[in-house]
């Protein structure tokens, strides 16, 4: 089922949570709404679900205007951040809930068979008789997903689905959700504030800030072509270096980078730590190392430039450096934005 949002607006009291957001999600697509807290991502998800109503704009499911259809008739599966499992029902009863209250009558045997199928799908066979309080967080989230899938939703919506879980469990569940999505090909929209999760899982990432879409595209597009300092900074660690642009070249320290299409004048170069290098002699920005942080896959150097800015560099493990060393930071590649 294709979902389309057309200039959707939502205001809480006096706070404008969502400002005219338009978005299309193709049938079978897995899309992440990514943004910091307060960016309106959860509000958008809840409006798609019908748990909040839009103050303006339209939401279409396929060709049908779903803007004012209440949640119980909208045919969405919603997975809550804290699972929202019914604590007084067993895992199997939780999964069966939607089928039991449905207007479509099903026999007990039918429901039991479907519950068994879903338990197998979420790899929880044999845990049907447990209560939610007796299983782990990761298992609860899988029960929540099975419960949402039990009613054959047209759309699956997940609100920070892995937010409350340990890092390891989170990584496993992410891969597993991707597998389930590939198996069922159900249109899925999920909310996260974790860029790694969005990039790992989604076909397309929609980045939000202050209730507006800042950029949307495939993980490759948003990573390689971030359209603003905000997107650049939100997707990963970033260094900011002041530069002067003239004639399509950006001069930083005693080095220069090509800057096609950037107007002459002051500009800022945004560089990932791994796109900076450290040399003791050569072209670059003179700097002094403040601290060295060793990591399994390399070393991170914190260095201060003459202007007093602190840069973070990820360098190869072989690089010899220690606090107090003086040298040069070279820029391998960066994105240049005119200073705002």
């Amino acid at each position, binding site marked *: 089922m294709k979902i389309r949002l057309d200039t959707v607006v939502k205001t809480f009291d006096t706070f404008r949570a969502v400002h005219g957001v338009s978005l299309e999600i193709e049938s079978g697509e897995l899309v992440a709404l990514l943004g910091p807290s307060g960016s309106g991502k959860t509000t958008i998800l809840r409006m798609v*679900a*019908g*748990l909040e109503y839009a103050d303006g704009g339209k939401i279409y499911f396929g060709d049908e205007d779903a803007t004012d259809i*209440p*949640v*119980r*008739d*909208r045919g*969405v*599966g*919603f997975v*809550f951040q*804290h699972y*929202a*499992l*019914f*604590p*007084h*029902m*067993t895992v199997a009863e939780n999964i069966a*809930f*939607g089928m*039991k*209250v*449905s*207007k479509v009558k099903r026999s007990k045997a039918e429901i039991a068979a479907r519950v068994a199928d879903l338990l197998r799908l979420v790899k929880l066979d044999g845990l049907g008789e*447990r*209560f*939610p*309080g*007796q299983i782990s967080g990761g298992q609860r989230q899988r029960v929540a997903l099975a*419960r*949402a899938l*039990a*009613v054959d939703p047209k759309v699956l919506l997940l609100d920070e689905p892995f937010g409350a879980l340990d890092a390891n469990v989170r990584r496993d569940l992410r891969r597993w959700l991707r597998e389930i999505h590939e198996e069922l090909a159900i249109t899925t929209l999920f909310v996260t504030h974790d860029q790694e999760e969005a990039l790992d899982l989604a076909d397309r990432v929609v980045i939000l800030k202050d209730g507006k879409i800042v950029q949307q595209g495939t993980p490759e597009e948003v990573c390689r072509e971030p359209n603003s300092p905000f997107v650049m900074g939100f997707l990963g660690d970033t260094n900011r270096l002041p530069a002067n642009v003239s004639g399509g070249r950006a001069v930083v320290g005693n080095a220069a980078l090509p800057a096609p299409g950037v107007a002459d004048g002051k500009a800022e170069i945004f560089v990932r730590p791994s796109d900076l290098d450290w040399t003791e002699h050569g072209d670059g920005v003179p700097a002094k190392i403040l601290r060295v942080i060793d990591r399994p896959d390399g070393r991170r150097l914190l260095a201060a430039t003459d202007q007093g800015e602190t840069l973070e560099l990820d360098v190869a493990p072989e690089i010899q450096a220690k606090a107090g060393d003086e040298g040069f930071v070279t820029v391998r590649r960066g994105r240049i934005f005119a200073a705002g």
Partner: protein
Amino acid sequence: MARRVLPGLPLALGITLVYVSIIVVLPLSALVYKAASLGFEDYWRIVSSGRALASYRVTALSALAATAFNLVFGFALAWVLVRYRFPGRRFIDALVDLPFALPTAVAGIALTALFAPNGWFGSILGEAGITVAYTPLGIMIAMAFTSLPFIVRTIQPVLEDLDPALEEAAQSLGGSDASIFARVILPLLTPAILAGVSLAFARSLGEFGAIIFIAGNQPFSTEITALLAFIRLEEYDYQAAAAIASVLLITAFLMLAVTNILQARALRYTARG
């Protein structure tokens, strides 16, 4: 025993045990001892006399009716106080505790004045052919008045803690309001409802001050058990008073036991496995 952050377990436990012994266990033991000194035949004759049986009947039935009424009304009150925001909500919330704070005799006199045949309510109800004062209906109203806070105050906090996401989840799964209430909200409130009901019922069984003014206290029709025990006491027949009181005591214990079993059943899901 594992070390605890706060010291003083022996002291705290000691004080608690002494307190419970002096205030609760000692008087109850004295009561049982007094009743037991009667011998079985005399005891049985007193507690199964016609007048005593009639008092059990009117007390238990009135308490049952009052509790049933409060279950519906108290639940609605708790629901409204938790779920809606309206002007005067805090005032009504404070008002719920009034039966706790008011001397029960004052409540009894006020209710009698209202429901007497020439009172504000009594005169109107009288025209409709309903007499409240000096009938079991009056006993029921007095019991309902004094036991209302138990139901409201046990349900209210549990209702407040109910995660709104549970209802949203049930809605997203297609549940109607009625099915969400019956399958999600009510089962989660059941332990609190049971606790409130048992407290309200126990309070109604033992209520004295509020009732004796409005009840009329006619033996065999509007005489409650607590009053009968009091009358025996006035007659210096301590053993008979203790015997009748022991019936109330046993009833209260049995009811607490039943409620505990029901509550444990309703809370099975919280057991860790």
